[in-house]
């Protein structure tokens, strides 16, 4: 266990080296909030609610959703694996007594901690300065369910991106898969628009997929909504996590032993 804690620490330390990055992370959070403030201000002009959301709730949705979806740092795993398998440096993970997936998980957590540190500070300062009426539910069931679903969601995303990265052993180039994934994810996670604006039939299909629960549902739960969806969310996420927990080790073993490229 200590080795994984040390891996998280070293990845956090790596992030902290870049002072300009840290500064611009904070600036970009403030810029996003300002953008939401202006955009939704125009949309809400002369209206009390839009799709059942008040202005302050909509801003809260936007801030929370953008914060929670940005916390998922696993996207870079697939790109990194793709690059490392092809250029031959993936072997560095194979020769040390650490599972490559665990290595990448720790890397993701290290990066996410950095993000939490600066984004949270920036959000707090922004909300405090502008005295923004930020809404978050006081319902403990909602809050703890949101946290549980979020953790499962982030873990799943890490598993999923690792799986996509493993496909490099077979396909040599996985950019097409990544592009398709990015587009589907943006839509289903509610990162583009709140899902309540989509037809109900479409949403019911989305609910069997894990992406719906990554940031959208936790955001809604934190806003005191969609409480009835918690059981289905937990079961769905657990099923996906277990599925990939079985799939990833066998895929890794199968592809690495069959791999014939000049890389690794």
């Amino acid at each position: 266990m200590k080795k994984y804690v040390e891996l998280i620490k070293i990845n956090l330390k790596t992030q902290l080296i870049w002072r300009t990055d840290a500064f611009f992370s904070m600036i970009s959070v403030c810029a996003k909030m300002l953008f939401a403030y202006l955009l939704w201000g125009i949309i809400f002009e002369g209206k009390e609610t839009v799709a059942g959301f008040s202005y302050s709730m909509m801003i809260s949705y936007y801030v929370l959703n953008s914060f929670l979806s940005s916390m998922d740092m696993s996207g870079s795993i697939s790109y990194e694996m793709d690059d490392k398998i092809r250029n031959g440096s993936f072997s560095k993970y194979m020769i040390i007594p650490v599972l490559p997936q665990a290595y990448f998980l720790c890397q993701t957590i290290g990066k996410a901690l950095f993000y939490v540190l600066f984004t949270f500070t920036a959000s707090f300062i922004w909300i405090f300065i502008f005295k923004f009426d930020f809404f978050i539910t006081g319902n403990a069931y909602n809050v703890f369910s949101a946290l549980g679903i979020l953790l499962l969601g982030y873990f799943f995303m890490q598993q999923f991106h690792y799986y996509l990265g493993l496909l490099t052993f077979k396909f040599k180039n996985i950019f097409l898969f990544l592009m398709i994934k990015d587009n589907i994810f943006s839509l289903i996670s509610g990162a583009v628009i709140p899902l309540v604006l989509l037809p109900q039939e479409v949403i019911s299909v989305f609910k069997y997929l894990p992406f719906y629960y990554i940031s959208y549902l936790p955001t809604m739960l934190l806003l005191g909504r969609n409480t009835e969806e918690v059981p289905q969310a937990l079961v769905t996420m657990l099923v996906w996590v277990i599925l990939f927990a079985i799939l990833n080790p066998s895929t890794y073993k199968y592809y690495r032993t069959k791999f014939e490229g000049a890389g690794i």
Partner: protein
Amino acid sequence: MRYTSVISAMPIIETKDLTKTYKRYKKAEGLRGSLKGLIKREYEVKNAVSSFDLGIEEGEFTGLIGPNGAGKTTLIKMLTGIIAPTSGTISVMGYYPNKLENAFKKQYAVVMGQKSQLFFELTANDTLSLFKEIYDIPKPEFEKSRDYFVELFNVKDLMNVQVRNLSLGERMKMELITALLHNPRVLFLDEPTIGLDAIAVKQIRGFLKNVNEEKGTTVLLTSHYMEDIKQLCKRSIVINNGKKIFDGTTETLFTTYQKYKVLHISFADSTSMRMEDSLLKNCSILESDEYKVSLQVPKESSSKILDYLFKSYTVQDIVIEEEDIGTVVERMYS
């Protein structure tokens, strides 16, 4: 900490009939060939390593030599478990490497000249702290091991410098310290001196020699530099086209097959060399202009030739080079 659970009288590294074949896409020429490749592809099979038998005893320092594409790196990758063999048997410390068991990985280390385990943004000490946990090294052993290597390389002042600010030679020293921190039984080195300056090369050679002699670490070294092999390895294995073509003492290899040296001579004035002298009759000019000449000279008469050159010409500088591995391998084949 040294793991001794799987020790027996058998060699620490052993392969029999070890073969690795790659399937390569044979693309037909031009656009037509590219379009054809979309529908049907033809493949050719290449033997990267072919029926390779190897036995290395614990504590040996062995050189693995061969030209580019000879199969050296493929062999190292199979021995470290990075790739799986196509056929044959392989055993390293009693383990089948490609199973990638943690118990196996804790007993060896690999240093590949152009692949790094270091975190470039952080210091070498940061990486060492990580490897302490990864290899589960108790604190007193970690400190003892780290201090031993730091002193051996004389790099105490560099331990808290960001890796990206270190020179290539300094980075390689840190790479070696990181690799040896857990006191591995076997060390695989793939071109550790590539691109380094003469001082760093000398220090690294001294370090490796020390580790082999003091700690009894088994070392398998691949290098393009004859001098690395000559100074470090008692035994040499020459590989070409995936096959072993020589396995014996390094001394035998060099006395039997390395017949020439190359002298690069720079003259103070414009000079035309007279090759008619009997001493130079077995020499050949590889390259020349009015101020310098590169001569291939028989090894046994190189000192006499040097003496003659100094007496007969206004020599400004002389560089002496060993024959490269490619030429020696070519001679072995012929």
